[in-house]
């Protein structure tokens, strides 16, 4: 139990990972709801509004859990990472403060209006509330990504005489190239999560033979949005993100690929196990020269391997980084194929009756969750051993006066709370799904 740093890291990683299960769905659903409300306005058909109402309820439950699991993260900066906060608060406090001021007020005001206001507001007004909620939740995402981007690739600051980091260029900080790339990749991934969930519910209802009209609608919306955004998440945004890592964190890139030797025409490893002790990949299946092309745009580019760098600069858990990256990329490829096939069947008009495909769609909804979680693991383990890349090592960021026992205690407290929350969440979501959409036009 002795090492406080271990518990601080475990607690932050654990609470952040659990938290992000919820916002990734709400940020994705926010766009789905806007699309449904827009279709409702355009066609005047009640089924779009019925579907939107159902997804607003699901959004509401997930938003609540997302909010309460997000509060601890803001507090942890001060409670667990006091030295980091003291040093960099003048910079990352900007984005965290802006998130409260510009995003949270917008979200909390308009979510209430979306849930309670459908009868009080005109259809256009209700669409406006959905639009405001979407903007609010995506703004919130930007401020958080910009905060993380400063830790990944610090820009727009100087180090003052007392060692603290001082903001010198707000715009450089806010428009950090890393933030722009990661934001696009991340938000599109959130829409993929939303689309897979929508498609899965549509498939479930179709297989059960309940809510037939809504089942068809959700299948269509989920599949079309799912295909478009699964492709976008890989190209161009995933590609851009990869090039950013290659440019600013070449050590992380080498670890992600399990590459030890440097040299041109670097191979892309599709499958294999990194053996760090023996400095090689076991049983690899590789595409020749592809890594050079992906990272730097030319097959003959030089890609540095881990051996090029001092060992104390290596990410501590190279295996975890390698597998996280390959799980993310592998699942991404599978998801594109899956949605491509579903879209083809939809286009042929056979999706509603293709039971095996519906089974796959229904069971595939965890894929984007796993892929995004793995993606964040790549970003965060890739940043190690740094808390702020190249500026502050993780060992120097934790609170000096908080002992391991206290942190272990609160970590266990969170584990307990999250178990209870998960059970309640599953129970409530399960109920909503079996109830299905409530139509305002029918007598139900």
């Amino acid at each position: 139990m002795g090492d406080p740093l271990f518990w601080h890291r475990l607690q932050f990683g654990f609470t952040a990972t659990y938290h992000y299960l919820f916002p990734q769905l709400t940020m994705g659903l926010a766009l789905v709801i806007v699309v449904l409300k827009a279709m409702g306005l355009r066609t005047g058909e009640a089924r779009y509004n019925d579907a939107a109402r159902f997804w607003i309820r699901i959004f509401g439950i997930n938003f609540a859990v997302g909010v309460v699991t997000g509060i601890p993260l803001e507090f942890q900066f001060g409670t667990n990472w006091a030295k980091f906060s003291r040093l960099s608060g003048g910079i990352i406090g900007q984005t965290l403060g802006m998130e409260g001021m510009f995003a949270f007020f917008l979200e909390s005001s308009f979510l209430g209006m979306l849930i309670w206001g459908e009868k009080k507001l005109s259809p256009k007004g209700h669409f406006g509330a959905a639009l405001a909620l979407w903007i609010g939740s995506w703004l919130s995402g930007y401020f958080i990504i910009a905060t993380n981007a400063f830790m990944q690739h610090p820009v727009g600051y100087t180090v003052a005489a007392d060692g603290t980091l001082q903001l010198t260029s707000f715009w450089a900080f806010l428009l950090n190239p890393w933030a722009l790339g990661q934001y696009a990749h991340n938000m599109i991934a959130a829409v993929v999560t939303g689309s897979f969930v929508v498609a899965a519910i549509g498939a479930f209802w179709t297989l059960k033979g309940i809510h037939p009209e809504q089942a068809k609608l959700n299948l269509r919306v989920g599949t079309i949005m799912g295909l478009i955004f699964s492709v976008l998440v890989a190209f161009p945004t995933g590609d851009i993100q990869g090039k950013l890592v290659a440019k600013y964190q070449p050590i992380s890139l080498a670890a992600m690929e399990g590459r030890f030797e440097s040299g041109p025409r670097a191979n892309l490893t599709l499958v294999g196990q990194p053996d760090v002790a023996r400095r090689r990949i076991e049983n690899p299946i590789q595409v020749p020269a592809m890594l050079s092309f992906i990272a730097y745009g030319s097959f003959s580019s030089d890609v540095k391997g881990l051996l090029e760098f001092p060992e104390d600069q290596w990410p501590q858990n190279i295996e975890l980084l390698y597998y996280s990256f390959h799980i993310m990329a592998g699942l991404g490829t599978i998801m594109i194929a899956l949605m491509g096939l579903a879209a083809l069947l939809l286009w042929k008009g056979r999706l509603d009756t293709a039971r095996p495909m519906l089974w796959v769609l229904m069971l595939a909804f965890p894929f984007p969750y796993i892929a995004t979680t793995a993606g964040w693991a790549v970003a965060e383990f890739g940043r190690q051993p740094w808390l702020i890349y190249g500026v502050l090592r993780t060992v120097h960021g934790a609170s000096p006066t908080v002992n391991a026992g206290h942190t272990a205690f609160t970590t266990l407290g969170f584990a307990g709370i999250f178990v209870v929350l998960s059970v309640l969440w599953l129970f409530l979501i399960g109920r909503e799904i079996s109830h299905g959409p409530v139509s305002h036009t029918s007598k139900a």
Partner: protein
Amino acid sequence: MEMLWFWLVSVMVAIYVVMDGFDFGAGILHLVVAKTNEERREVLGAIGPLWDGNEVWLLAGGGSLFLAFPKVLASGFSGFYLAMWLVVWCLMARGISIEFRSHLQDGLWRRFWDASFTFASVLLPVLLGAALGNVLRGVPVDGSGYFEMALWTNFRLGPQPGILDWYTVLIGVFALVTVTAHGALFLAWKTEGAVHERCKGLALSLWGLVLVLWVVSSYATSVVNPGIFHNLPKAPLAWVATLIFLAGLGLVFVGAKRERFLMAFVGSGAFILGLLAASAACVYPVMLRSTLGPQFDLTAQNASVGLHGLRTGLVWWLIGFPIAIGYIAFLFRFHRGKVKAAVEGEGY
């Protein structure tokens, strides 16, 4: 510029207390003033659309503290480690209770969430009040800029105080009674029928208790921090703040007597806002007083970040603040009038 940010942070925190204060109060009272499920839904309906907006003030205020005075945030949050997590867990319990309660029409389910909602609503103002008590009394910050405190010790003051001692608990109780009284006026304003009548009856006696506790707490504060009122003669803002909270107090009693509960509620908001502002004016420029000696105090000057950061923050703050106020005005207007319990299965 540091002084300006000291005031911005203080104002954000004070607005948070006023706003979340009334829904804490409603949470504390709801088992007392609302007997039937219908009545409870009326109470929850009154705060339902507003509470998460209120809570945002805490995050926005915390963000302002973070960007302007990160040393205070780092020292305070890590020093109050366990108390901080109690606050977080209560915030989580409240949020979940109010959101989940409406999703199932079952007696046991609802009683459980009502209980957890009440429990968290009671504990939070006590903890936040105790936090204010700690700031007023002082904490053992040393030359490293950090401190460590036990959650409680023997409840006596001394060189090694705990987070909870008789003084901070007293301030916690004062805070609890004040937000309860504040919430009673809010509910009296927003409801009708039986709930309204019960809140009306409670409000005046609660405010009587607030008066008593205010006098006791002020005296106790002068005992634990004898220097605190020394700033008064030369701090014009303290006088303005004092006028505001005294006027607020007057409005509370006049409004409650004349049954004009919006007026009384505005008065109780002004009382809380003014009292906190007066406290801030008295301690300025100290943000975290050290019990080990004034040379270790964290002040608005020695804990602030560079000028460029403060200026940048000010620019977006001046844009964001009016927008946030606009949302609140819009929200209160949208949900204006007395609440009616919503149709089962819809909203709260």
